[in-house]
């Protein structure tokens, strides 16, 4: 969307992502991390902040934090400190959140965000990554709770989060979305976070300000919160940029504020002015000791990191080989990439496997609203299906028709071909007889072909395919028809 205001001003965007870590239990309590439970069905005295409880740090959360930090090229600090962030809100049971403040677990780092086709990726630097616990949920919807109340559900209170803060290096709403996609892909690749915005385990706040082109000082920024989809992120940023540009055009100042985006109106509005900087009274949590991670532990995690997307993409292009476009699509998700490689191991023709996955499997997934992780189709089954086509045991068309079912329910392609009578008719004798029948039945068309209307071949092909219920191998049929029609063997 080319917006005149964006060319007058330079847009400066920084993003804060809260990513929920994939752990079984919470950050400081052994309560289970579960999604979709009724209120307070997944809590422990620690989550409820009962008098006398104490926090104990989850080992796996630390490991996942280190993994994320290494995968984004951050420096992992051997000592970091948990600090209390003090404020009052009903979904914050202790009246403070255990987070990290002056001494986070990781700082520095970057993500290379892909740009338009052909352009070099843009490097967005990361300021820091730190660990903190999530708050619970306040339920405001009057339809559920009535007009005078708010319900508090602490299932989510204490769930481990990584806060990933970028430098204000992002220059457009589109780039913001690209950054989020890249970050999401990395976090999924290393299995640190499911990164599903709809389920709320990947949340984004955006800070945006404008300045005149060429100006080096930052303008006053506003903060956009509660953006729960990539579409909203982009739309909210565009709306806020327009609003700020309008103010600046009139010579008015932008006030520091927290903004909400209303998708119905497409506009942003002020939720809260930030006149007083919030006084969270951070101090090191005296119930916890500093987190010390050894250089050995960091190295161990580094060794265990899987091959990341960009390395894998480059390797796919080089090794199989694949086109840059195909490689990028296949490596977008590690599960998809692994699927591809397993299928190639079973089949051998990388290009063919790539085509089938990108064309047929992905389409079937999309139609059935599934992710590749949920597909019942195995790489071995796909390889087998392709071999059946190669060996002429079934036609490509029949095979393609089986893909949706294989994706949804799985199964053995060979058995399915047999059960549904999809065996290709490859018996040459039968094919020749069928071709002859068609030629005999369509004399005028045959004459038209021989007089130069080569397009008639398709019609005659169609007749043959129909008589064989589509099971004839089209290329064999075409060959036989052609030789009959062109007089290799005139009848």
């Amino acid at each position: 969307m080319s917006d005149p205001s964006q060319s007058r001003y330079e847009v400066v965007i920084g993003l804060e992502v809260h990513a929920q870590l994939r752990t079984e239990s919470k950050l400081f309590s052994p309560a289970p991390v579960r999604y979709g439970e009724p209120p307070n069905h997944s809590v422990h005295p620690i989550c409820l902040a009962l008098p006398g409880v104490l926090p104990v740090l989850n080992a796996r959360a630390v490991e996942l934090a280190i993994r994320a930090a290494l995968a984004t090229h951050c420096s992992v600090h051997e000592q970091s400190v948990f600090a209390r962030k003090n404020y009052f809100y009903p979904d914050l049971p202790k009246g403070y959140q255990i987070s990290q403040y002056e001494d986070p677990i990781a700082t520095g780092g970057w993500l290379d965000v892909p740009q338009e086709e052909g352009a070099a990726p843009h490097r967005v630097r990361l300021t820091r990554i730190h660990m903190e616990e999530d708050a619970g949920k306040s339920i405001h919807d009057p339809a559920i709770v009535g007009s005078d109340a708010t319900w508090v559900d602490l299932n989510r209170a204490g769930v481990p989060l990584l806060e990933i803060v970028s430098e204000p290096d992002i220059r457009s709403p589109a780039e913001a979305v690209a950054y989020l996609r890249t970050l999401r892909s990395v976090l999924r690749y290393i299995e640190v976070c499911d990164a599903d915005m709809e389920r709320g385990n990947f949340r984004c706040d955006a800070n945006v300000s404008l300045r005149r082109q060429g100006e080096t000082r930052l303008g006053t920024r506003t903060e956009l919160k509660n953006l729960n989809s990539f579409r909203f992120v982009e739309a909210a940023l565009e709306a806020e940029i327009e609003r700020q540009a309008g103010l600046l055009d009139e010579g008015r100042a932008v006030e520091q504020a927290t903004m909400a985006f209303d998708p119905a109106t497409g506009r942003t509005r002020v939720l809260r002015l930030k006149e007083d900087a919030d006084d969270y009274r951070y101090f090191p949590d005296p119930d916890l000791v500093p987190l010390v991670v050894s250089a050995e532990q960091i190295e161990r995690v580094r060794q265990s990191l899987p091959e990341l997307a960009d390395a894998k993409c480059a390797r796919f292009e080089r090794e199989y080989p694949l086109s840059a476009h195909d490689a990028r699509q296949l490596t977008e998700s590690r599960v998809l990439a692994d699927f591809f490689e397993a299928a190639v191991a079973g089949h051998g023709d990388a290009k063919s496997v790539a085509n089938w996955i990108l064309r047929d499997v992905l389409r079937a997934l999309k139609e059935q609203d599934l992710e590749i992780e949920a597909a019942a189709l195995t790489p071995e089954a796909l390889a087998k299906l392709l071999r059946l086509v190669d060996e002429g045991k079934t036609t490509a068309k029949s095979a393609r028709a089986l893909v949706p079912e294989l994706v949804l329910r799985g199964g053995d392609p060979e058995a399915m071909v047999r059960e549904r009578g999809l065996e290709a008719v490859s018996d040459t004798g039968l094919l020749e007889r069928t071709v002859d029948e068609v030629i005999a039945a369509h004399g005028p068309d045959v004459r038209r072909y021989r007089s130069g209307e080569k397009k008639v071949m398709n019609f005659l092909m169609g007749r043959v395919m129909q008589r064989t219920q589509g099971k004839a191998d089209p290329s064999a049929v075409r060959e036989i028809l052609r030789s009959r029609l062109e007089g290799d063997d005139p009848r």
Partner: protein
Amino acid sequence: MAKATVAALRAALDAGQQSARDLTEAALARAKSTQSSLRAFIRLREEGARADAAAADARREAGCVRSALDGIPVAIKDNIAMRDEVVTCASPILEGYVSPFSATVVEKLGAAGAVVIGSTNMDEFAMGSSTEHSAIGPSANPWNRKCTPGGSSGGSAAAVAAGIVPVALGSDTGGSIRQPASFCGVVGVKPTYGRVSRWGLVAFASSLDQIGVLTRTAADAAAALEVIAGHDERDSTSVPQPVPRYTDALTQDVSGLVVGLPEEYFVEEGVDPEVLASVREAVGELERAGARLRPVSLPHARYAVATYYLIATAEASSNLARYDGVRYGHRAAGAHGLSDLYRRTRSEGFGAEVKRRIVLGTYVLSAGYYDAYYRKAQQVRTLLRGDFERAFAGCDVLATPTTPEVAFALGEKTDDPLRMYLSDVYTVSANLAGVPAISVPCGLVRGMPVGLQLIGAPLDEATLLRTADAFERLAPQHVCEPPDPT
């Protein structure tokens, strides 16, 4: 029988002269008969205690005695959680709150077979030095009912001094076990920070709080501490070192023991001269028994009270933020909206002293003041810890008075918070440094008990208990009874 020690009660149980049920009934009866004059307890747990006592008797019958405390009636301070029991920290804001879990120390007492007969009175949220800041009213000192028993574990001290139970748990953040022990003429132990689990102790100041014991003798303290101490996975500040058998350390031998006397704690100013004389005499007894006295210096000791009040109130202001009327405890009626609910609930639910400390603590952490107050205090704390390390390089224990005065009158200091805070002058430094300390009775001044404080190196409770036990035997006249309160 009522005023016996753990050792004596145990002997009676072993000999079949008394049953656990007898002991529990006697304890409950004495608690009730002294309640109007002493108010040591905030709540009794009669049904539970009777059931536990019956179980103890059954065990003894079957020959399965669990420990030295099996069948012995004990009390816990009202800031220690016990499953399915009310715990309020003597605060209106927790009225009626029932804990669904037990503190680790309570679990350990249960595993040892001890019978918890009830919860003792205290200053609200452990903030105080006189047990006058309690929602149910003050406790009294069994030696003189017009005087305070000290605080904040005043109820526990009174319960032991009056012979209701031989062992009571308390908590000590700036002296809250040792000072009441001194005022009531009983033994009080604050362990090394991290020696006893804080899981289930309602937090006041997390980096200073420790649960400890009040008993009639050092030997009883050793037995009780052995039961409640130990590493706990549920407490991240719990030390992993195994617990020595403290009862085995009571050799009564102090020959060669080097006792340091911090010169900053033996100045004449600010202390009752008779108290100081009594403590000097006590230290002289140790010397006569073979200990060597040595002057030491803790140069930063004079900053300890100021340092303590900045750190403790800061941590407390954060620890008490959870009392908001949302999930448990008192909720104000008639509030207009959420902010109003918070303000009304907390203003109704907290007493004046608690509010004062929350305000001070919030201020100390607030933007612009954090560096000058909180951070500065934590730096001075580091220096004070260094002072202790140097002192212990040349000494086994340090000896000081426990308090600058004997028990003061009820109402005497309630109008002057600063004056109240200054009575902690000898005790707060041990909490700041995290080192263990014990108060043992060492005499009477004008009819009121005086306490000798011994401070030990980290995790060296054994030497403290050995010295205290030896001192008791050298000067047995100090293990004495207050006049009968009933």
